[in-house]
């Protein structure tokens, strides 16, 4: 039978795949190609009389000299490194705890999934409310605990504005990280722990010498996956700080968005989006390579 399957008419398989593939090509790849083409032009909708002259790589040259771009890149990198580090640490704790069997584990696992599933906009608003200067519980708690002398306005300075941004991301994404790590944990052969325990190794030794090394591949996948996400961050920062004060927390995606849909500099904005695309594409290739065996079709 199996032979008969493999000698089947490949046209049939293509017929099944074509509609979905056509949609993906049409709505995703075609616009991407358009963005690349657009990025080679000067296209400013505020000055339509200039037309849309071809300028080659001039937009990219301008990006390299644009301090706002480098600032946005630095903000994005800062956001990525800080939030992902915290998410990996908390996610590991959570995954290890969820890997133990206890009553109500299913319920807990479902409950921690909820922050991941809610709209990012809602998560951002919940945290903006908690860090509101008047009604925010963060100020109330910190003043009562003596950490702050008086309530502060968190969103007026970059240093303090980052706090709710990072915390909101960690809150929203740690459950997801934990679930991915949990899947990795469940693939570790239980007999390794039993053998170690028979030899008198404690849980700390087991964690360092069995769990962490064997979890490393899963952690790497999570790391790449989250870095990809962090480089695309938009909703969270847009709602929490709007990139402000000024542009001091502006990530690259918000800069590109403002360039295009607010300043109507479509050519320059397109070049910015191509840069974002190339950076995430590099990460995506790494990620897909990591999953390659899985893609081969064999189980």
């Amino acid at each position, binding site marked *: *039978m199996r032979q008969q*399957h493999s000698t089947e008419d*490949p046209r049939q*398989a*293509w017929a*099944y*795949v074509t*509609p*979905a593939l056509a*949609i*993906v090509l049409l*709505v*995703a*790849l075609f616009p991407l190609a*358009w*963005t690349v083409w*657009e990025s080679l032009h000067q296209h400013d909708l505020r000055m339509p009389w200039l037309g849309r002259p071809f300028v080659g790589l001039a937009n990219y040259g301008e990006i390299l000299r644009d301090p706002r771009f480098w600032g946005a890149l630095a903000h994005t990198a800062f956001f990525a490194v800080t939030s992902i580090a915290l998410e990996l640490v908390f996610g590991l*704790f959570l995954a290890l*705890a*969820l890997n*133990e069997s206890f009553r109500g584990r*299913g319920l*807990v*696992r*479902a*409950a921690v999934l*909820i*922050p991941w*599933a809610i*709209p990012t*906009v*809602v998560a951002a*608003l919940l945290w903006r409310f*908690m860090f509101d200067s*008047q*009604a925010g*519980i963060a100020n109330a708690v910190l003043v009562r605990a003596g950490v702050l002398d008086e309530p502060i306005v968190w969103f007026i300075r970059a240093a303090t504005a980052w706090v709710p941004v990072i915390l909101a991301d960690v*809150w929203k994404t740690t*459950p*997801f990280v934990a*679930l*991915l790590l949990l*899947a990795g944990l469940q693939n570790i052969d239980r007999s390794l722990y039993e053998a170690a*325990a028979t030899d008198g190794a404690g849980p700390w030794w*087991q964690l360092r010498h069995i769990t962490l090394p064997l979890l490393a591949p899963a952690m790497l*996948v*999570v790391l790449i996956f989250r870095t990809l996400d962090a480089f*695309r961050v*938009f909703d969270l920062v*847009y709602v929490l700080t709007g990139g402000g004060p000024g542009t001091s927390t502006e990530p690259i*995606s918000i800069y590109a*968005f403002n360039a295009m*849909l607010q300043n109507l500099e*479509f050519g320059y904005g397109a070049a910015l989006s191509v840069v974002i*695309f190339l950076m995430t594409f590099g990460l*995506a290739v790494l*990620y897909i390579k990591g*999953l390659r065996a899985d*893609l081969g*079709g064999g189980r």
Partner: protein
Amino acid sequence: MLTGWQRWIAGGVLALLVGLTAFPFYWGIVASLTPEATLFREPSLWPTHIILDHYRALFDERDFWIPIRNSVIVAGTTTLLCIAVGSLAAYALARLEFRGKTTILSLILAVTMFPQISIVSPLYLLLRALRLIDTYPGLILPYLTFAMPLAVWLLVGFFRQLPLDLEEAALVDGASRWQSFTRVILPVSVPALATTAILTFIYCWNEFLFALSFTLGPERQTVPVAIALFRGQYQVPWGQILAAAVVATVPVAAMVLLAQRRIVQGLTAGAVKG
């Protein structure tokens, strides 16, 4: 594998993390039921004086049912399209052998990781040329960019888990691939299709950037855009914003709790290989 006091520490850590996870929800719900004056004067951990005014204002004054209607229509239509077209493609990709399959799978996975921002401007110009800005199709089309690859990817994962011999009896009896797909695979895949539909719906329900870019006013705004753009006359209308946040969260939370096991399965199968 932990014993005695170690279990207690693990339990304590877990309880703390779950508590921290739950607190923002708790606080948001409490605040959405608290009069604004109390909220700003003396924030209290326990609701002292419960009111439903914010929810009433949300629907009576802000017509919040309009963004809800828009979100349901857009996310629902996108999801149905993705399941209909995506399941067929996923079937071929998971269970038929043909050249180019690996390339297509890689392409689809790559598109799930597309930065949305990199296609916003051409989509905007395209939709404007087609006069689709501020319409339902003007959101459904862009939503297919992330929803279709996601649905196909999840379904491939699910279809691969079905045993090979499942179809063989039908194929030996002379059934065509199409018959095998519609009469054997689809009926046993109802839970997988439902899970994929739930996840696709959630992604569409939560989407913000496209909905922000391709709508012009309240008539076609989706829930996240409407909430994010809430403005008050004098100060931020926190009571109503939080009431809206609760309303936007309830359907998603319900779906997650219902389909928890399978969602976890689908997500982790796609992201970390088993």
